């Protein structure tokens, strides 16, 4: 699963500000991350933390006119120039063949008045010159590969004739049609029921391992992320607050938000109340100074509210967290555990 290769996509200091009638929404405010070859990177955070906007900005799929973006998005096989300001023709060459994305709600992600087959064929032929027979064969093969029964017949069907799970599989087929090297999956299982969720996740993992492509998996569900990913990026209020391997983050989370997220995960056999994080995320229009998690943090001090936050090394390799008190907190927690309280 790990053994990641060279960097495939590097995002540096990405900022996406949206101009709305209520003001400027700083949806993504200085996010940096790297995805390596054959790696699955997870982005986790609650609604509104900027994970979807990050992915869409990378793909260039934000609504025009409202978005103001800065920073760099470098897709290494394409060269070292940022694709953030690439011309349309360049982006069209990259999309599908190199970068692909699947969206959260499969019901709205497909054109309701055209058949699944039509839309899949469109994807298959977008970057390859194939005869009709070849294209059709490839399309049917893709539907089969993602686990849709009777694929040849289903080509003629329309989206409203598919269930949610089937639609998501079809979308995965469409995303993989031109064999991209990086797949961005934005909450692919959130609108599906639990049993189907599992199936889709396994499918994604299987495909990733078979093809050796990289994946960015976005979710608000930490359980999903930890199952599938190699490395994790935790986002809060438009910023990255912690970053590291799955093992490190699960065993030694350094940022209070990450800790709270892990705490909130229901344990098997757990009784009593679920632990949730009190309070709600700050406004992205009037962004507070200092640490954005301060109002909800159980370790907050006055200095936290004026500290100019940045990602600090935790001590473990490639594991950083945006908390200046992380070492103090670590020591306090170790002491607590040591003194027998559990």
């Amino acid at each position, binding site marked *: 699963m790990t053994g990641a290769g060279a960097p495939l996509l590097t995002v540096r200091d990405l900022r996406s500000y949206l101009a709305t009638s209520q003001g400027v929404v700083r949806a993504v405010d200085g996010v940096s991350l790297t995805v390596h070859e054959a790696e699955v990177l997870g982005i986790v955070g609650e609604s509104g933390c900027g994970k979807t906007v990050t992915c869409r900005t990378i793909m260039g799929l934000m609504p025009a006119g409202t978005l103001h973006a800065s920073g760099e998005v470098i897709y290494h096989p394409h060269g070292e120039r940022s694709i953030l300001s690439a011309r349309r023709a360049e982006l069209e060459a990259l999309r599908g063949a190199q970068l692909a994305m699947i969206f959260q709600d499969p019901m709205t992600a497909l*054109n309701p008045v055209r058949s699944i087959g039509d839309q899949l064929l469109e994807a298959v032929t*977008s970057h390859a010159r194939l005869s009709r027979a070849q294209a059709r064969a490839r399309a049917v093969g893709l539907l089969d590969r993602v686990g849709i029964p009777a694929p040849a017949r289903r080509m003629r069907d329309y989206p409203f004739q598919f269930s949610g799970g089937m639609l998501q599989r079809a979308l995965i087929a469409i995303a993989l049609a031109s064999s991209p090297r990086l797949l961005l999956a934005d909450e692919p299982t959130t609108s599906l029921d639990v049993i189907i969720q599992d199936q889709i996740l396994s499918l994604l993992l299987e495909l990733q391992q078979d093809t050796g492509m990289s994946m960015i998996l976005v979710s608000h569900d930490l359980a999903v992320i930890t199952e599938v990913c190699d490395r994790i990026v935790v986002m809060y209020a438009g910023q990255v607050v912690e970053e590291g391997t799955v093992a490190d983050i699960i065993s030694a989370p350094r940022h209070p938000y990450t800790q709270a997220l892990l705490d909130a995960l229901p344990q098997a056999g757990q009784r009593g109340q679920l632990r949730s994080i009190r309070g709600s995320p700050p406004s992205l229009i009037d962004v507070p100074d200092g640490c954005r998690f301060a109002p909800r943090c159980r370790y907050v001090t006055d200095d936290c509210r004026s500290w100019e936050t940045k990602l600090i090394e935790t001590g473990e390799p490639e594991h950083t967290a945006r908390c200046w008190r992380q070492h103090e907190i670590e020591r306090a927690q170790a002491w607590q555990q040591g003194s027998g309280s559990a």
Partner: protein
Amino acid sequence: MSRFGSLPRRLVHLVIVLFGITLVTFFLLRLIPGDPALAILGSSYTHTRAVAIDNFLGLNKPIWTQYGLFMGRLFHGNLGFSFFYNEPATTVIAQHIAPTLFLVVYSAVLAALISFPIGFAAGLHRGGVLDQSSRIFFTLSFAMPAFWLGIILILLFSVHVHAFPISGFGSGFIGHLYYLFLPALTIALGFSTVLVRSLRSATIATLQAEFVDTARMKGIRWARVLWRHVFRNAILSVVAVYGVNLAYLISGTVLVENVFSLPGLGTLLVNSVSDRDYPVVQGVTLLFAVIIVGINLITDIVQAALDPRVGQEIGA
């Protein structure tokens, strides 16, 4: 309101509406205050003629017998006798259909040719020059009565610049196209306001749909995304609007035919009204209603063809 449900149900609905139309048209004649025979004959009133009319209208019989008489004659293609033309009403009406039908189709096509590109472009470049200027233009043209617009167009293009003829139907297909250009344009402009607005908002809404993002994600050309996804979907809501407003358009032909002196159904209607030729008034009204029912049916069929979801029992 598009009609969900299977074809048989739609046809039954159609038949009911048609019956209702005959009822309304039938009762129209009964609205005349006072003595209908006197009103119909006017100065050519003689006792014999009055009796003939009374018998024809069956006014001395109970109302349902009258309706039965009316429907019976209707099924035999008898719409009554035109007192003015001295011929069966059906004949008179048949002579006037061609220009109106030509005008209606011509206007419909012109309206589409004008409004589809403008509406789509306005939606794509919201707030742009085309959007703003077309908005102003169409707000103005919407407030213009069709007949006045026709007169202005005549003033500009027939009187000042002798580009188009002032009146008449012309001969031959090309002749018709030439003679009817200004009248069709008049109607089309009035019609286009609604279409442009509808397509514009449908385009804006469709652009925000997630399936457009999926299409872009595939890496296909933007032009192709626009045509096969955005336009293809936006046009769906316009079809319904198109059908409903085509009905209003037909109202417009009445006025425009008058302004351009076209020998169509509209002119016939107006003349018959001033001539007190009530059977013809009744017949033309009936015919117009049937045409509209037909147009609505065609609209439904087109909608079903474009949108596979419509045939399903989704529930109104």
